[in-house]
Every structure is written in C-alpha cells, then in structure tokens.
C-alpha cells in the first residue's frame, strides 16, 4: 500500500500495450507532462500488426504513490490494453541501443577501438578521422561507455531509450 509520507523515489520500467492508432502516443506523453510525472525514457513501436498493438516502454521515477498513480492514469486511457510495472513484477531485461560517434586521430583511435572492444560495441561506420559505434546494453553501460569516450573525442550520441521484458516463460499480452 503506498504511503503518502514515503518520499523515497524509485525507478519504474513500465510496459504499456496500446491500440496502434493516431494520437495514442500524444495521450501518453500529454498525461506525463500534464500531471507533472518524470519521463526518463520512452520508446514505442508496433509489435503486433494484425491486432494493431503497439508497445510503449516508459522509464520513470517517483514515490510509490506517484508510480501507483502513473499506472492507474495510464490504465484508464481508452486505447490502453495493459499496463505492467516490470520493476515490481520480477526479474526483467532492459536493453537500449545507441549509436556513438567518436572523432579523433592517432592514439585516440586506438584507444577508442580498445574500449569499444571491452564494451562489445561494434564499429558500423569508419572514416580516417571518425568511428560510429553501435552498442546495446542497459542505460548504465551506455552511460559508462560515453563517459569514457568523452575525453577521446565523443562527437555525437543517439540513443533509443529502454525496451524491456520480463524474464521467464510468461508473456505480456493485450
């Protein structure tokens, strides 16, 4: 039971199955901005073309009471099929994809490749003075990689935001 005097913030990764229809993303984003909730990341894509279902993954933080509210508010949107707080439902996987451009010459290039190897980042584009690395992982891993690249010549970062799924046999269906 949420306790209003509990001011401890927690992170939550919430999976939302929605009708794949115009305006649904605006409804979800408008809900967060209108009610003052945090969005750390939000991703969306169609996951079932025949049944016209999209999956939105939201990473947010809030007190227990706020997170309860977020879930209830999402659930009452008409095109929302299912809301699942993966953080509470058990062990789950979180992955994010990032493209990271590093610019530099000489020793910096060697160092960049060495680090990329350690982080299992792949080179997906190269010129004589740049690399673009592709990497997947959780947000912390990508953050760490970017931090290490900064002094070497980090030029640009593009990240997808998290997608997530429960471990084990149970699936989330609409």
């Amino acid at each position, binding site marked *: *039971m*949420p*306790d*209003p*005097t509990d001011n401890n913030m927690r992170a939550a990764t919430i999976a939302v199955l*929605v*009708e794949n229809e*115009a*305006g649904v993303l*605006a*409804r979800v984003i*408008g809900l967060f901005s*209108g009610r003052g909730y945090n969005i750390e990341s939000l991703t969306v894509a169609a996951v079932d073309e025949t049944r016209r279902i999209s999956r939105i993954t939201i990473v947010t933080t809030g007190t227990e*009471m706020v997170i*309860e*509210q977020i879930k*209830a*508010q999402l*659930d*009452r*949107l*008409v*095109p*929302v*099929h299912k809301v699942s707080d993966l953080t509470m439902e058990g062990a789950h996987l979180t992955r994010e994809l990032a493209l990271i451009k590093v610019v530099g010459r000489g020793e910096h290039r060697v160092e960049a490749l060495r680090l990329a190897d350690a982080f299992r980042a792949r080179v997906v584009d190269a010129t004589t003075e740049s690399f673009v690395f592709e990497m997947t992982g959780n947000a912390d891993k990508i953050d760490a990689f970017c931090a290490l690249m900064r002094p070497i010549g980090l030029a640009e970062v593009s990240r997808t935001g998290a997608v997530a799924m429960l471990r084990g046999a149970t699936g989330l269906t*609409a």
Partner: protein
Amino acid sequence: MSATQHADAAALTMSGAEVVLRALKDQGVEVIFGYPGGAVLPIYDALFQQNAIRHILVRHEQAAVHAAEGYARSTGKVGCVLVTSGPGATNAVTGLVDALMDSIPIVCLTGQVPTHLIGNDAFQEADTTGITRPATKHNYLVKKSADLARVVHEAFHVARSGRPGPVVIDLPKDILINKAPYQEAPPADQPHRSYRPQVEPDMAQIRKAVALLKAAKKPIVYAGGGVINAGPEASRLLTDFVRMTGFPCTNTLMGLGAYPASDPQFVGMLGMHGTYEANLAMHGCDVMLNIGARFDDRVTGKLSHFSPGSKKIHCDIDPSSINKNVKVDVPIVGDAGRILAALIAAWKDDAAQPDREALAAWWRQIDAWRAKDCLRYVQKGSIIKPQHAVKRLFEITQELGKETFITTEVGQHQMWAAQYFGFDKPNRWMTSGGLGTMGYGLPAAMGVQIAHPDALVIDIAGEASILMNIQEMSTLAQYRLPVKVFILNNEYMGMVRQWQELLHGGRYSESYSAALPDFVKLAESFHGVGLRATSADDLDRVIREMIAIDRPVIADICVDQKENCFPMIPSGAAHNEMILGPGQEGGVAGVTDEGKVLV
C-alpha cells in the same frame, strides 16, 4: 451475409451526416444543444429534414456544453452538443473541462475542415483533438467514412460508462458529405477491445469493509458525486445502508441529494464551507466509508492533518481516484450502486450489528458539535442577508411542493445555496464543483428545463457570474423556458472579496462589480420579467411572484454587500481549525504563506 452487413450495404445511401444523426437517435438522443457554422452545415441540413432529434440553438458554444451538462446531470442521460470547427470548438473547451472535472457524460460533435485540408491552417481550422485531449475523457477524429457509425456508438459508451465524462468527435466536412455505411451499436455485452471499467466489486474487499465498519466506534459515511453518477438506485441504497447502520452521513458539494438532507443522520456538507459537525466528525472518526468521492482539496484541507486517526474505506469506479491524495486502507473498485448493494448483502449475511453503545456516545459528541448551530445567521432590519434569501427560497418551494431543480454560478452564493437549500433527492442540484466555472448556472438551468419542462428550475446566481453567459436569456425566450434567475446581488465578486478581506489585508483589488446593468430592464429586453427585492420585507413577495410567473424571470435580490461565507476552513488549515463566523477571523491571521499559495 449477416443481417448487419445487409444493413450496411443498404445504408450506403446515407450521407455521413445522416449516419451521425441515425447513430445519435439509436443512442437515445432526443435533444442536442448546438450552434451552426460552415463545417457542420451538412449536419444542420440533415437535422432540418428529420423530427426525431430536437435542436436547441444556444447563443455561445460554452453554454451548449453547460446546457448539456444540466440536461445530463438532471436525467442521468448523456448530454449531446454540436458545434462548428475552429472557434466553435475552442468556445466549447471550458464546458468540456467542466464536465471532465465533474464526471458528467457528454458527447460533443465538432465540425472540422475536410480531411485533405487538415494541417494547412485552413479557414476555421483548429487542432481540435489536440486542444481537447486533456479536456476530455477521450476524443476521436474520424478520417474514414467506414469508421463513422462505430465511433459515434463507441463515444456514447465511453461517455456514460465507468467514470463518466465528455467525449469529442471531430468530424471533417467531407466525411459528413460523403456516403457512409451505417452499423448498429454493438450489443451491450460485447466488451470493448481495450476499455473495460470494473463495475462489480471484489467481495473479499467488501468483507474487509464490513469487518471494519461493524467494529467502528466513531464511523462516518462520506458520499460524493459518484453516488449521483451511479443513478438514483445508488442513492436509495446509500440511504438504506446508512439507516441500517445508524451511522452519520455527510455529502460533498457534488454529492448533495445522494443522502436526504432532511434526515436526522445527515450532518450536512463537509469541506471548506461545510458544517462544523461534518468536518469534526471527519476529523475525529475511527472508520471512514468514502463512496464515490475523491478526497478533493476543498474537502480534505491540510492533507497531513486530514482525519488522522481513521481507517479509510474508499469505493470508486476509477482506480486512479484511489490513493491519489489520501492513502486508504480498504480500496474497493466498482460502481457505487453495486458496491452498496454488496455491502448491504454482506452486512446482512454477517448479521452484523454496529457497536450501539459506542455509536450512541459518538452521536452525543456529534450533537454537541451540532449545538454550535454553525449555519446560524441573524436577519434583522431591512438589509437582506443572503443566507436568509436562500433559506426563504427553499422554504417557499417546499411549501409549494413543486418539483424543484437548482443550478448555481460560482462564488459565495453557490456555497450559501449548498448550505441552506436542502436536497432530499439526487439529480436536483447542478453546480460546477471541480472547475468552478462562473457562467455555468444559467445554461445548465436551460438544459435542466428542457429535460423537465414542468419543473421549477432556478439558477441561484451572483451578479458577476451571471454576466458570463447572460446571452442565454435569449435562448430562454426563444424556447419559452421559464427558468428563474435568482441573483444574490452583493455588488462584489463576493468570494474574491472575502479572500481579500481575510487574507490580503482588505485590499479589494478589482473585486467590485462596477457598472452593473439594471437587471430588471435587462430581463425585459430579453423578453423576460424582472423583479427586484431591496428590503427584507420584499423578499417573500418577490420569491412567490418569481415562482408564479410562467416565463423567464430575473429576480435581483439586493443583499448585504459585506456578508462572508462561514464556516470556513482557511486554505492550508485542518478540519479542526475551522472559523465559525465573524469575530473569529483572528484565526485567519495564522494563515501561513504556505497556506496562501493554495487556491
């Protein structure tokens, strides 16, 4: 081929506009409140050629929505609105938000530029679905003729089911003109793909509630607008349950009439301007049963001090209302009527008995609070006290025994209406609670009078609020709606003046109602009758005359300009820090800046 497919093929002779009207008719719509314009001309053309649906031409689109709200709240049906694109839709927005805040079922059809022009800044284009997204429970933009009938049926289902609210359907003009297939509404038992509000309560939760209630020593039932939303049967069940248990019952502003005001177990409205006994009983109770109320800030006061020692049971159809402001111990999601029926059944099954001795002591305490007589006022001399004006209005309508419906504007007069007009039945009281929209009362009264042509419908108004939708006097005249506007004219935005007096050092910044019209002449120029009472001796005569006239009437009741509305819980204060009346304002000196920031 199924029967419906046959019907589809046959129906391809209908234009989109005709499909819309047919769907409205199948949804039981008898009246639509609207205002024409280019984008909705096809619907107006179709309206012209049929007799099933009556159109009421308002004078401003905001009023169309409030009229539909009055219609809906007084009948339990969905109110229906039709406005044009651009300014028609934007004018409707205040009404939509009002209906959203107060959970009123509305379907609002808005015209839109043709689909191929959407996004081009076309003439009278507005992003209506964008603008109304946070102003509605749900909205639709119909881009395919094939979707039209389904969307209209679905809109009504969404508006009236679960927690009711306003739904907008944005209709591009080409969709209205092109031929479209008709489909019947889906059968009531066919679930929606994604929207399935929970109606039936969880019996385990009901049993937990019964266990708490029967052990209670200082219980209270706190019932709100959700009981009205659930239909008159829910009010009857609430009354049964409260009488069975012998518990005290309080209603929110939105819940007035859910429990009979004349019943001895009713302790009055609670909250900022609620009674002393209701607020202290809430503060001191050990078990609180909330049915269909949302722990609004006007009700709870300072949250950290709200009913500190109680176990709380919260029954609400909307899970997002639960644990939003106040943490509760036993949440019960479902329809108030079904929950009350289940509570009564479980109470009987259990052969539950309240703790009679404890309850008797609790009532002795409540009676001691009641003895403060917190709503007393002194009417002496010729200056009319506004409380007295409402009290006499109530008593005279009681005496005449006419079916009476009251609407209000927003301000002190609204609170006095809530305090001094007793409602024994649901659906007789329409007020703008959540949004607090000045200008609500007159159009709402119009909608009520359309639904109840023979009833006495009175808008208890303030002289400032009434000017916000005064143009509707013209609608009253056109449709011969004998609505009575009872203005408590204090020549101030009294509620603003009261806050300035109590919280801002008596600096009455811009709260004087200067350059008022002559309301008697104003009524006459709108083909109505104007009456005025300037002295206490005139009051009864004016009230009786107003009621006797079978035409629109404005009664300008000139009341004490400096009267304040008490009791009052100042913002940021707790229930037990209530100010009872003049001479006690000292209590307000203690309002902190933290309190002052609150609205």
